[in-house]
């Protein structure tokens, strides 16, 4: 269990957990958006816009963690 091996392991695990979190979050978001569009099809474009914006923000948080994982893997 050398330090470098542990570092790579941490990077991999971190990236995987991050993607799980992002997938869950954006999945919930998309589910709510689908439901809203189904209930009221006239509101679908507005719902779609808000969904994309919220997805971009969630991904922003995801990328924080991913950048840290990449830094771990490179250094």
């Amino acid at each position: 269990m050398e330090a470098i091996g542990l570092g790579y392991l941490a990077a991999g695990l971190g990236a995987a957990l991050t993607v799980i979190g992002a997938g869950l979050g954006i999945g919930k978001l998309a589910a709510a958006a689908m439901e809203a569009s189904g209930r009221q099809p006239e509101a679908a474009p507005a719902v779609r816009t808000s969904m994309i914006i919220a997805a971009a923000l969630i991904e922003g948080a995801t990328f924080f963690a991913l950048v840290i994982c990449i830094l771990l893997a490179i250094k």
Partner: protein
Amino acid sequence: MFSEKMLASSDTSLAAGQGEHGGEQSAGELFKELFHHVEDRHEIDLPFFGHVELPHFDPIQIGSFALDISITKHVVFLWVAAAILCVLAIVAARKNKRSLVPSGLGNLMEILVVFIRDEVAVPNMGQQGVRYLPYLLTTFFYILIMNLLGLFPYGASATGNVSVTAGLAVIAFVMIQASAIRAQGIGHYLAHLTGGVHWALWIIMIPIEILGLFTKPFALCIRLFANMTGGHLVIVSLLGLIFIFKSYPIAVTTIGFVVAINFLELFVAFLQAYVFTMLTSIFMGLGIQAGGGHEEHAH
């Protein structure tokens, strides 16, 4: 197709890299070689001229701080994006001045400008948001053009460099504070920094509030940087798969994936420019609203 040209461009330097290391290449070496395509370099690959070395200046020492102002690939693309933006804006403005009905490039720019004004500036900042429209438009178009330049073969997105996005975030920070101070007056602005607690708690509250001022632009910076760099890393890594497996069927499927991810990258380029602009306008709007919604307060 973009991906074939990208394969060609990465082919030459990746093949050169393989030749250097010789024989079977470990994944770690390949990753380092791939990463060179995404990060900043001191040379530019031109389509027919090969490598062009860029001038290398020694870092300037300011105290313990080394400032490296050599011209790198991302700096060149910053200038290219600025030049393209200037040309686009001036040509579109002239075209719109000449005739009442916009057409061609003038029409295209007008669609985007009106979109930013009606969907981003005015809903978030009210009617006086139009005063900040030049800054928002510059941000949007500059980030958009920088992102799109990265999708061309032999191109690189300057926004894939954390220094570039940090610079953009610093300017956003300045604009957010400036709009808040302008709307609230400097007294109210400093009062908001204390958070409305008892004066004995000010000593804890003020550093925390000041730190909180910095988190929003920091998030803007990291979001843009990571989105751009992550996208390019995925594309380059998928292409690297071809070099690891060295087989034709894998190459064909990989190129299919890479084309799909390039389309996603195109979408992300537009989306990230829009999100940066929209978040900046939301933060500025928060400051303006806290000042009672009118700007002619104190300046």
